[in-house]
């Protein structure tokens, strides 16, 4: 019988945490670039996306190798399968951050339509959610993961609020539709990031308790 060693599990986990750290950094930097018109920072985010893409492929390959050579079962199987899935979520989060960075570049240093308050708030919540979801994995504790799922509602609320606000703004100022749409796209990207982090939390619950709570 093949068995996953503690060393192999630690190695894989540290790669996943590295991936999460890079994605989390991308959220912080992308919103900072937009809020403070930092075009260079935006370019850096887009360039660094390659690193995250390569790490995604590396983690996928490592998971596949362990599945084939170690044939893990029970909690080990659930962990490797969960990592395989959340790896994609983390990569998608970084992709969405490049969309935000592209919006910064599109503005060419002009200030955003209005000072950003809710968008940075969405970013803060999603970073907090990501921390909690990973803590659920590292501590093998479903509580923080359950909190993440609750927290996603706050992000969805903020997204709706931004929509409403920008729609009325567009109605009043048709000349600013393009910029308003840019911010709607950013808000949507952050809302999607919240969904990906929720997926990660759901996978943590699957890893810990063996139950699939998706679509419930």
């Amino acid at each position, binding site marked *: 019988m093949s068995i*996953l060693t503690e060393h192999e599990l630690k190695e894989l986990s540290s790669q996943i945490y590295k991936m999460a750290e890079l994605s989390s950094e991308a959220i912080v930097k992308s919103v900072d670039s937009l809020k403070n018109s930092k075009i260079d920072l935006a370019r850096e985010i887009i360039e660094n996306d390659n690193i995250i893409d390569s790490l995604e492929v590396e983690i996928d390959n490592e998971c596949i190798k362990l599945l084939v050579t170690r044939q*893990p*079962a029970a*909690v080990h199987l*659930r962990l490797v399968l969960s990592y395989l899935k959340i790896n994609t979520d983390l990569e998608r989060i970084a992709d969405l951050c490049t969309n935000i960075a592209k919006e910064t570049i599109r503005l060419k240093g002009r200030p955003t339509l209005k000072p950003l308050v809710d968008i940075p708030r969405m970013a803060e919540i999603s970073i907090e959610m990501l921390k909690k979801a990973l803590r659920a994995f590292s501590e093998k504790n479903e509580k923080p993961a359950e909190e993440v799922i609750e927290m996603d509602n706050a992000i969805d609320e903020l997204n709706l609020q931004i929509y409403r606000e920008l729609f009325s703004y567009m109605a009043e100022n048709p000349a600013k539709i393009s910029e308003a749409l840019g911010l709607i796209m950013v808000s949507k990207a952050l809302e999607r990031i919240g969904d990906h982090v929720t997926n990660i939390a759901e996978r943590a619950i699957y890893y810990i308790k063996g139950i699939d709570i998706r679509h419930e």
Partner: protein
Amino acid sequence: MEYKISVEDLSFYYGNTEAIKNISLKVKSNTVLALIGPSGCGKSTFLRCINRMNDIIPETKVKGDIKIDNESIYAPKYDVIDLRKQVGMVFQKSNPFPKSIYDNIAYGLKINGIKNRYEIDTTVKTSLEKTGLWDEVKNRLNESALSLSGGQQQRLCIARTIAVQPDIILMDEPASALDPISTQKIEELIHELKSEYTIIIVTHNMQQAARVSDETAFFYMGSLVEMNSTEVIFTNPGREMTENYIIGKFG
């Protein structure tokens, strides 16, 4: 739900040593049950209780009961010879008789009183076909069974077992001495045989249990720790002890 085998509070003693402790479980018809657990946990002893093979070991004692088709096999009037016909067994080491391939299968039929040559020929052929051996041996039926490879010998033993038309086949690590290709053939065979037979297999190979069985029972120190569908046992076992065994923390 139709159960082929019902084990009720079964305990088994070698002298004063309780090797099996109060085991109760049920096996559905036409399914494969895998028994897993570390060496000495009682899997093989349990298996041998089902065809009363342990009867021949001196100073042993059975408590509780096993029912096959709702009939107690430990009832005083129960015919053990009939039981062994109904419950075939395949061992870890293939043990063909030092006779021809043909005679290995015909022997069981003859001692069961079948004399009709045509009937014997037909059964030899269908048994060998069912175990996928027919094409490999049809031109050498009179050669010694010992001239076959290890994997072929094991399939011959399975053919010999099914020739007498049992309902249940017990397998005690049937592929542990075989190479991967022969193992795969045995596993495919188990999959095919289950439409006609109820199979209980003891295996130390966890992946094999996961591949061939519908349900898995985990034994530890003579007790049944957990039994559930194989999918549940290998993805989300209910007991921590089962999980620790499956992920290799002990055993």
